[in-house]
């Protein structure tokens, strides 16, 4: 029995136990123990992260002449450890005070259901990651979709429910595209094994590859929320209960990336994609995919900029950050793909932390609406600190880990000489910077509302995971080599050349990156700044924030003077027209089309003469039959 078997057994056991006892108080402790045990098992497999051998599960299934099998390689392990860690953090987050308040608001059963949903998500993702052939990949894929749906459907809010429905329709569409692609693979190769596809893909015609890639990619892109399938994700993730949002936001959508890695990179091969030119354009398939990534970094980011709810803003960024990962993977060098992969890890750390901070804010204040927040920094300084750490990561600024992965993506684009993609990525980053400032400003800075005067720091059970995540962000930012070990192994498993790195960063002849130095220098600079500020000059006097005036008015607690609504008004006004609802309109158009067709069909079924259809179909079919002969 391999460790992977143990993982699966543990998953099954955990699901069973949780299901049986989900109404009982104290289930959260059990859940934490479960994730910790899972993490332990994964660490037992950590050889994979350092170039170990693939681990197979002894369980397999024979069907349709296919052998379904499950195994872990370095890529799976890399994603799996992020998944399980996210699960653990979410579980810890919801184990304490947050859980109590959730129970009070809803019920024991509802809380148990949330735990089950989280566990099912983790389990289904592990099954997906362990898949050893297309069919098991698809099975895992569907399981993940349904588990996420369950999680999203837990919020009784109307908007959340609509988002969940929307999600399931999108997910189903994606799954169907995947299924179609899989069916074509079977049609071509007569098998669903990875190896067969990898072998056959070399001999496929361009048209076939385009069709296959398009179908596969559509399926995966929907999960990842890539352009033009980005509409479902943000609302769905944002409206999930906080620990759910933490988990889904951190890793769920990345399953799409995993599938892209497996199918498009491992099986079909990037080089192969690059050789296929799209007819009538000067693009090849690889550039198209890269551009999808680039556009995904831009459009959702600027949609995020518009949001007026912290959760939505973050979730939209989640969509946008997916673009960097894809963009990184679609570059043709090892640095870029390493950047893309590293970004998965980094992103998970700060996105989880960000959702946790928002969760903490909601826990204390009951809202994430920017119009109803502000000035919480004095009340919740630690939460604020975590948020600042995380937004530095999200914006990709030094010294947090987000910077490293983004740097790698930029650097690889530079190596490839892709100016437009580079510019697109930068536009996305700048948008992110603006947007995260809006986030931190509107929640923590500015004027504190009267009703929040007595808000206290988030409870310890919420703070601990956040602080740990913040520490991880900083440590892996300063020493990216820790994670790059895993990334390099994953790259090897993907059949790419691993990136050259050291503990501090990337080694590259024409300008590398050493985060240890950069961090030190930054802190040196800050130290100098602090000296200039604190040691020189007189002592500053602390005044209350209402001791303030604007435009000749004294700002008092009665008058709300927090500038949060319509932040960046000028910018929005300027760029609003560029993306104003065109995708939404497309989506609506499809719905209208379906509606129209549905109405037409219904009218057909309501024909006055029951026999009319008989004669019509008889005449038409006889006509077509005789047409073949005459």
């Amino acid at each position, binding site marked *: 029995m391999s460790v992977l078997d143990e993982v699966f057994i543990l998953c099954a056991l955990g699901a069973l136990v949780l299901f049986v006892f989900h109404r009982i108080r104290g289930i959260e402790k059990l859940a934490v123990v479960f994730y910790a045990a899972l993490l332990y098992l994964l660490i037992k497999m950590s050889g994979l992260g350092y170039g170990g051998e693939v681990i197979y599960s002894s369980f397999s299934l024979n069907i349709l002449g296919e052998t379904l099998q499950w195994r872990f390689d370095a890529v799976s392990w890399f994603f799996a450890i992020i998944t399980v860690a996210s699960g653990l953090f979410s579980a810890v987050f919801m184990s304490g005070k947050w859980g109590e308040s959730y129970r009070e608001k809803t019920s024991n059963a509802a809380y148990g259901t949330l735990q089950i949903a989280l566990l099912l998500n983790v389990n289904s993702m592990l099954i997906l990651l362990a898949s050893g052939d297309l069919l098991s990949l698809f099975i895992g894929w569907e399981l993940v979709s349904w588990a996420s749906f369950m999680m999203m459907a837990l919020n009784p809010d109307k908007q959340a429910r609509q988002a969940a429905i929307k999600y399931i329709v999108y997910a189903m569409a994606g799954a169907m595209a995947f299924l179609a692609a899989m069916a074509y693979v079977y049609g071509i190769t007569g098998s669903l094994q990875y190896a067969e596809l990898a072998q056959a893909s070399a001999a496929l015609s361009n048209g076939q590859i385009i069709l296959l890639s398009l179908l596969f990619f559509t399926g995966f892109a929907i999960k990842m929320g890539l352009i033009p399938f980005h509409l479902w994700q943000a609302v769905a993730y944002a409206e999930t209960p906080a620990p759910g949002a933490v988990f889904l936001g951190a890793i769920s959508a990345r399953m799409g990336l995993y599938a892209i890695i497996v199918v498009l990179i491992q099986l079909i091969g990037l080089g192969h994609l690059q050789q296929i030119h799209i007819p009538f354009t000067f693009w090849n398939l690889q550039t198209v995919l890269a551009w999808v990534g680039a556009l995904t970094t831009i459009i959702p980011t600027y949609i995020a900029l518009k949001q007026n709810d912290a959760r939505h803003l973050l979730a939209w960024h989640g969509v946008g950050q997916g673009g960097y990962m894809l963009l990184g993977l679609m570059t043709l060098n090892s640095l870029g793909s390493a950047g893309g992969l590293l970004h998965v890890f980094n992103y998970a750390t700060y996105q989880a932390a960000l959702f946790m901070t928002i969760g903490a804010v909601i826990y204390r204040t009951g809202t994430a609406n920017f119009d109803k927040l502000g000035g919480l920094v004095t009340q919740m300084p630690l939460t604020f600190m975590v948020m600042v750490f995380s937004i530095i990561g999200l914006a990709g600024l030094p010294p947090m880990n987000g910077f490293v992965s983004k740097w790698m993506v930029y650097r690889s684009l530079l190596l490839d000489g892709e100016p437009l993609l580079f510019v697109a990525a930068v536009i996305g980053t700048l948008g992110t910077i603006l947007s995260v400032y809006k986030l931190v400003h509107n929640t923590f800075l500015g004027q504190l509302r009267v009703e929040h005067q007595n808000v206290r720091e988030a409870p310890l059970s919420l703070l601990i995971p956040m602080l740990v995540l913040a520490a991880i962000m900083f440590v892996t930012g300063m020493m990216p080599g820790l994670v790059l070990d895993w990334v390099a192994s994953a790259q090897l498993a993907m059949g790419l050349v691993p990136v050259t790195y050291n503990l501090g960063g990337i080694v590259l002849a024409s300008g590398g990156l050493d985060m240890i130095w950069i961090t030190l220098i930054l802190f040196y600079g800050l130290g100098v700044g602090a000296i200039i500020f604190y040691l020189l000059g007189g002592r500053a006097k602390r005044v209350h924030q209402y001791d303030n005036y604007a435009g000749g008015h004294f700002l008092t607690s009665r008058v709300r003077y927090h500038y949060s609504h319509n932040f960046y008004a000028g910018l929005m006004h300027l760029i609003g027209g560029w993306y104003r609802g065109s995708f939404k309109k497309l989506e609506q158009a499809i719905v209208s089309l379906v509606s129209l067709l549905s*109405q037409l069909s*219904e*009218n057909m079924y*309501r*024909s*006055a*003469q029951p*026999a*009319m259809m008989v*004669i019509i179909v008889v005449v038409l079919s006889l006509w077509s039959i005789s047409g073949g002969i005459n």
Partner: protein
Amino acid sequence: MTMPGIEVVFYTGAIGLIVIGMAGVLMVKNVFRMLLALVLLEAGASLLLILSGFRETGVAPILLSGHAAGQLMNDPVPQALVLTAIVIGVGIQALALALILRIKHRYHSLDMGEIREQMEHDIAVNSGVVSPASAQSPEPGGHHHG
């Protein structure tokens, strides 16, 4: 086809019956007439079926009727089949007739269009989508005459 014989007339007749019956089923509004058209249609089909065993020079397949020994007989099978088919038709027609009687009583109409509308309304009421009070239109705005 070599020479058109008497069977052409038969076949044309059968097809004619079928087509007339079909057109009748489609075009009349009165359900009773529709039933009559259905009878014609079935008659046409039966004729076609019995023709499938027809021989130009054949005689009835009855041995005791004093045909010459070598005389070709018509196929007995379709005749048996048609007998069956006719009886089946009778059963269906009787059932339809009974239904029409009851529908006339229930809906006070024999017009297929009206019957359908009332039926749709009833179904909608049954399923609770429409309240019984709302008049004749089964679905607000969604109604079309076929």
